[in-house]
């Protein structure tokens, strides 16, 4: 039973680490499916992480903090939208700028507001998302096998974890079963088709970018108010890029995004438990290798050695009416 418990613990931390990746990955999915590349996921998460922690610390309410985080992320989304949709600028460069903007501004404002060297005060009580105990979790806790599974792995996460997992089927349904989804996918493949069908390309793309902002906002809030208790400098720590990697890995599909982020979450969980790998495989795996593994795998996927990832056809290209 000991191994089983260890496994459950490992999966539990996989879920925790996968959640921000999943939210950011789905965020990127909406944006890129609409033809707007977004390498600014990292920056949006970071900004949201700071503002939700900061506002939660000030108001004592994590929910107001969450809203503030989403708002901050939306502001950056708006900048990305104005640059890449309205002014048809380079989407990649805009994304790079947004990452730096968030990296600099969060520390600057944190210093101006809290004077704690670029961090927020630690969050306590209602200023944090607490774990939720699902119904009967305590009751079945001692049932063999199923008990720990339900109590440890499925129950006991913050509300945002459940939001993230629910977002997967929802995203699938929106994309493939609704009018909005059809148009969104169309605008990422051939915006001219959407335009001549009398639907606003600009409107659709801004909508997609806004959804991306909301999801990144939740992801960032999760980092600082649920996973940890407060903001520290650069706390997104490359998660935005791992999410981007997961998106490619998933070939821009919602369910595959879930699998990819869980896999990358598992790498993250293993990084902190090298003893587990050693016990299971008998090989001593370097932490640095695990840290690099998501990136290495993405490169391999990108290289097309394991199934080719074909991005939305109009991705990255600003829409200019043909002359």
């Amino acid at each position, binding site marked *: 039973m000991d191994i089983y418990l260890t496994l459950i613990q490992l999966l539990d931390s996989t879920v925790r680490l996968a959640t921000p990746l999943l939210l950011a990955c789905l965020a990127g999915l909406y944006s890129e499916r609409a033809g707007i590349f977004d390498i600014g996921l990292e920056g949006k998460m970071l900004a949201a992480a700071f503002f939700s922690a900061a506002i939660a610390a000030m108001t004592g309410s994590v929910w107001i903090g969450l809203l503030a985080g989403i708002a901050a992320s939306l502001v950056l989304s708006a900048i990305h939208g104005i640059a890449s949709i309205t002014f048809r600028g380079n989407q990649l460069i805009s994304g790079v700028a947004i990452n*730096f903007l968030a990296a*600099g501004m969060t520390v600057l404002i944190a210093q101006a507001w809290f004077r704690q060297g*670029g961090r927020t005060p630690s969050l306590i009580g209602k200023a944090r998302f607490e774990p939720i105990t699902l119904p009967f979790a305590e009751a079945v806790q001692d049932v063999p096998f199923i008990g720990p599974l339900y109590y440890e792995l499925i129950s006991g996460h913050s509300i945002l974890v459940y939001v993230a997992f629910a977002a997967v089927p929802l995203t699938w349904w929106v994309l493939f079963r609704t009018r909005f989804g059809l148009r969104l996918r169309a605008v990422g493949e051939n915006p001219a088709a959407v335009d001549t069908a009398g639907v606003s390309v600009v409107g659709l793309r801004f909508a997609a970018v806004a959804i991306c902002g909301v999801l990144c906002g939740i992801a960032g809030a999760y980092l600082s108010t649920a996973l940890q208790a407060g903001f520290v400098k650069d706390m997104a720590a490359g998660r935005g890029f791992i999410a981007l*990697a997961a998106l490619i890995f998933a070939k821009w599909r919602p369910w595959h995004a879930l699998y990819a982020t869980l896999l990358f979450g598992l790498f993250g969980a293993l990084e902190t438990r090298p003893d587990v790998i050693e016990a299971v495989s008998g090989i001593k795996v370097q932490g*640095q290798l695990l840290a690099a593994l998501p990136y290495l795998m993405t*490169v391999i996927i990108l290289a097309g050695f394991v199934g080719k990832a074909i991005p939305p056809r109009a991705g990255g290209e600003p829409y200019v009416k043909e002359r």
Partner: protein
Amino acid sequence: MDVMPKWAEVILVPLISLLLAAILSALVILAIGEDPVAAVKLMVTGALGSSYGWGYTLYYATNFMFTGLAVAVAFHARLFNIGGEGQAALGGLGVALACLYIPWPHWSLALVGAAIAAGLFGAAWAAIPAWLQAKRGSHIVITTIMFNFIAASLLNYVLVNMLRPKGAMDPASARFPEAVQLPTLHDLLAPLGIEFSKAAPANISLLVAIAACVVIWVLIWRTRLGYEIRSYGHSESAARYAGMPPNRIIMVTMLISGALAGMMAINNVMGEAERLVMNAVEGAGFIGIAVALMGRSHPFGVFIAAILFGFLYQGGAELALWTTIPRDLIVVIQALVILFTGALDNMVRMPLERVFLALRSAPKPGRKEG
């Protein structure tokens, strides 16, 4: 159809973009409760008011010239190399290996050897994404980002497990031998009777960087390779038609780009730290993006932009020292410069075009749209 004269496109648009970035930066300083005018004064005195300040400004500028040129060269082939950070880190590894394991008789030979090693390592790190782009069509932006992270992990591993001297705690290589110490600007200028700060890290690498600017200018605008690179950057289909093999151009361009980024290490690793430490690049690879965008991928523009960013970097450090404004202000300014010169340039260009259109009379005959 060109609506604007060339001087407006080359000078006016970037200047206005820069001005907007500056205004916004000033507003940011105001918003955090500081005085922008005082801040600028402090930055100017701190970065340009003494030979010590200049020494730091030029030291940073040297880094940015290398990384800026790296991004600029790739831009000419319409390749966006975000991997300067990783390539410079690997360049540092090359420098460290060359300096630690080869007994150089004199710094000048060591400089050549280390520069070659840095270039080779940087080029090698760029070669994989380049090959994947050329042969497998993998998007170079994503692969170079991934390679930055992989480089960080690799360097972490090498420093912790291989280069760290026995018994040492921090993940860093041993100090390089005396013989490979590069002359600083103080050493170089002293024979000319010019007094220059002894403490500042600017060194002979600055001259190498300036030479690199000239060489890259000749390469891009005066050689057949440069002509092919520019052709490919403007139109891949046309390059194929003309018999310029795209794969070769991608590879060669990225190798040059990676080598330039890697060569930054002769400045920061060999010239300044004199040992390899973790995160030695300190974001200079990313600043190269801002520098190349601001310099409009022209080596002369890169030179100017690198000095400007050197000033910002040193000025920012001074600000952090004397006020409560953290050094991260520079990151914000860098972001704004990238945003306005790289992504929002149409915001400046469109109204300007309207102005120029209003200023000019009917179109000249024979110059109509095809």
